[in-house]
């Protein structure tokens, strides 16, 4: 197993192993509820809360949970946090809760969250697990924000509800509909991969001594 520093545990999820943009995990909420920036923020925060809470508990009780029932126990923990955040959102921000609808409840089956429990929190100390969960949660939020901003600007001509282009702008409705989610993530990934490829090529050109390692 690769040895990492606490700092790496935190930053890894934000960018280098971003759950949505690199690992392609948690795509369902990332595509479904990013039609406006507000929805993206709400979904990001809810997921962040569930992820850090679950990682904290799983990491704390990892010695007590028998291996055979670990997945079920993780799911019980995750589902509890999801139910709590579901009811809290409904009480605190009913409008946003109405918009997000079933997707709050569906955080339970977000594979990114279960993935962090199985791959990290169940093996590492509590502090490291919290750092890892926070980093992954922030990475998820960043990805959702990127998608939400693109889609709201193109699909509604506004950001956070503030109109950008005045009344002459004809909204590109497809971007707030499901196909717009797929289109947006496609273009974002295209840009991201083009950037990474060019960066790798430049790194190879600059340091010809270690080309194989860079390529791998």
């Amino acid at each position, binding site marked *: 197993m690769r040895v990492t520093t606490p700092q790496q545990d935190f930053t890894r999820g934000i960018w280098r192993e971003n759950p949505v943009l690199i690992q392609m995990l948690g795509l369902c909420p990332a595509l479904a509820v990013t039609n406006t920036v507000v929805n993206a923020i709400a979904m990001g925060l809810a997921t962040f809360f569930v992820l850090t809470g679950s990682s904290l508990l799983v990491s704390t009780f990892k010695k*007590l949970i028998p291996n055979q029932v670990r997945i079920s126990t993780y799911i019980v*923990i995750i589902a509890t946090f999801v139910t*709590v955040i579901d*009811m*809290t959102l*409904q009480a605190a921000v009913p409008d946003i809760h109405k918009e997000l609808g079933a997707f709050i409840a569906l955080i339970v089956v977000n594979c990114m969250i279960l993935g962090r429990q199985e*791959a990290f929190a169940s093996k590492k100390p509590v502090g490291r697990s919290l750092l890892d969960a926070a980093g992954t949660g922030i990475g998820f939020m960043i990805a959702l924000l990127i998608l939400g901003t693109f889609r709201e600007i193109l*699909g509604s001509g506004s950001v956070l509800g503030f109109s950008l282009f005045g009344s002459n702008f004809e909204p590109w*409705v497809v971007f707030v*509909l499901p196909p717009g989610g797929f289109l947006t993530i496609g273009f974002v990934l295209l840009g991201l991969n083009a950037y990474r490829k060019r960066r790798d090529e430049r790194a190879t050109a600059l340091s010809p001594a270690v080309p194989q390692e860079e390529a791998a």
Partner: protein
Amino acid sequence: MTEENLTTDTAQDAPPPPPQQEEASPLRLVLTLGIAGALAGFLIVFVYVATLPIITANKAAELREAIQLVLGAPDQFDTLFVVDGELREELDAGQAPEDFDQIYPGYRDDGTQIGYAIQAAEFGFQDVVRLIFGYDAETQEILGMLVLEHKETPGLGDKIVKDLAFVGQFVETTTPVAGVKVGAGTGAENEIDMITGATISSRAVIRIINNALERLNPMIDAYSGGGSR
């Protein structure tokens, strides 16, 4: 050969079970899940009890606002329950209010009735459209209409909420409402111009209102007739 390689690869990827936990007894497995479930249940009940009053208050406030809007700001309103085909002011003991359809008669301060606010829901284009409308039983006119909940297509079907010209048409329309295409109207008082590009959603709104009135009109007649005598 290839297949064998694949299996070995997968087996190596899977996390090795922690050796000290291999002999967990069935009792321990059940206990772990049982305790986790019990704690989870306790926490959820706690949050449920804490948030329920706020959620109920939010919903009541939303409904009150909607009634204010569709009845043109009544000074007060009552709640009537639809029970076995008639309107009742009180429920029998043990009957839960949320089990029955409710309509809300609104009054001015001097006691004159403005009309009834009626909630109704039926299938629209994508999902159930829930709306509330104000209805004056004497003139059989609609006083106002507000869509409370819908999942119609953004940009097309959601004009039943956002197109204020469409929503405004319902004020003082006589019932039963008839939907007509834009420009095809004859100027009759029960006509509503449907939204171009949102015909099904517009039609759904009209159908919801007409069906609700067809169902409730006899009850309203019976109720107000009995009340005035």
